């Protein structure tokens, strides 16, 4: 029984409660760092790591943290793992850190992570919290990649830096700019909801 429920916790983050397409959480990195597929993937992974680690620690300490100071404690825990991620990325590759630098520290204020800590990890066991974080992290990564790939293809004519179109392709600069993030997000939300609606009616 517990095995099926933890699988459910994982699956729900991917689709039914996808953090970006359904809950519309964490829009700052979604719109800001999704201008290339590579940046989107790296940002998604970094966020997923912070989400998993903070969910684990919050869940482990849930009986120890009084509810009056819980938000402060969660933020402290989240900020710690963001700092750790920042150092880890610097140690992995100078190039990667160069392209993400400014946005890593902004993971602290990603409401997705705080909402999972508050709404789930503080009330559930370690195992369930881990599955929930894995699912939400994967869902976030998937959504970021959807946006990043579309924006890079249309805005730059490339995917992962590889040219996809002949030289005379006129790239849509607007897709790289912040406005393109909103357009792409709106288009994906439209598609996502259309699919869900069709499923519901059939």
């Amino acid at each position, binding site marked *: 029984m517990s095995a099926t429920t933890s699988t459910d916790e994982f699956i729900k983050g991917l689709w039914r409660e996808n953090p970006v397409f359904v809950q519309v959480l964490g829009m700052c990195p979604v719109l800001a760092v999704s201008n290339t597929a590579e940046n989107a993937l790296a940002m998604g992974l970094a966020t997923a790591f912070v989400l998993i680690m903070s969910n684990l620690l919050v869940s482990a300490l849930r009986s120890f943290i*009084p509810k009056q100071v819980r938000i402060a*404690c969660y933020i402290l825990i989240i900020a710690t793992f963001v700092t*750790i991620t920042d*150092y880890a990325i610097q140690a992995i590759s100078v190039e990667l850190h160069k392209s993400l630098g400014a*946005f890593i520290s902004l993971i602290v204020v990603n409401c997705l992570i705080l909402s999972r800590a508050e709404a789930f990890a503080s009330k559930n066991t370690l195992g369930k919290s881990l599955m929930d974080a894995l699912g939400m992290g994967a869902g976030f990564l998937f959504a970021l990649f959807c946006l990043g790939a579309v924006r890079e293809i249309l805005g730059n004519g490339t995917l992962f830096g590889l040219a996809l179109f002949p030289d005379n392709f006129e790239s849509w600069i607007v897709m790289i700019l912040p406005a393109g993030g909103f357009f792409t997000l709106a288009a994906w939300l439209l598609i996502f909801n259309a699919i869900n609606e069709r499923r519901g009616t059939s």
Partner: protein
Amino acid sequence: MTESPAISTNASTSSTKMLVAMVGIGILCALLIVVTFQGTLPRIERLRAEALAQAVFKVLPGTSQTRTFFIDNSGQFTEMVAEETAVTKVYAGYDQQGQLTGVAVEASGQGYADILRILYGYQPQSQSIVGFHVLESKETPGLGDKIEKDANFLANFEQLDVSLAEDLKQLQNQVVPVKQGEKQHPWEVDGITGATISSRAIGDILGASTMEWVPLIYQQRGNFELNRDSQP
């Protein structure tokens, strides 16, 4: 009203608990950060040094070996033998025959998002900047980071004029940024549309740094020549 005494006793007992929780988590978090910082520091420093060493080869075309110099107490460029920190260093490059290919200088200044650190190659023979590389930038991905990728912009630094005036103490023309497509003189840095602030910042950083360093390096260019242990 009957509940109020209960609440006040609750509050007094739980305030100790709150304090313990906050302090405890604080200490745990501090410990985690310190461990990570200490653990990654050697590797981060090594990667930074490697990136810098590779950048020297990039900004000085034809370089096959490099040496590090610093300004000693008498104001002379001296080769650095032992590792020293907290001194301003420049990096001289040499080709296969041991001829000086140029001197790479690090410079930094305010960009759009944060401090930009760049490295540029100065060639005393042609009195020009022959290469440019961004060491550290937090410019907006997709916009400001064009200063590292835009071919038209990078072409500025293949032969950027930094000739000295006759007194050898200052530049004839300071390096200045201009709008994209308005470059008319060999000492102007053509900007990037869509990365205006970042590309202007590069022009300004170069302008300030070359004013300071180019006269010094040119006057002492003899110090950089390989006079001993020449290449076979």
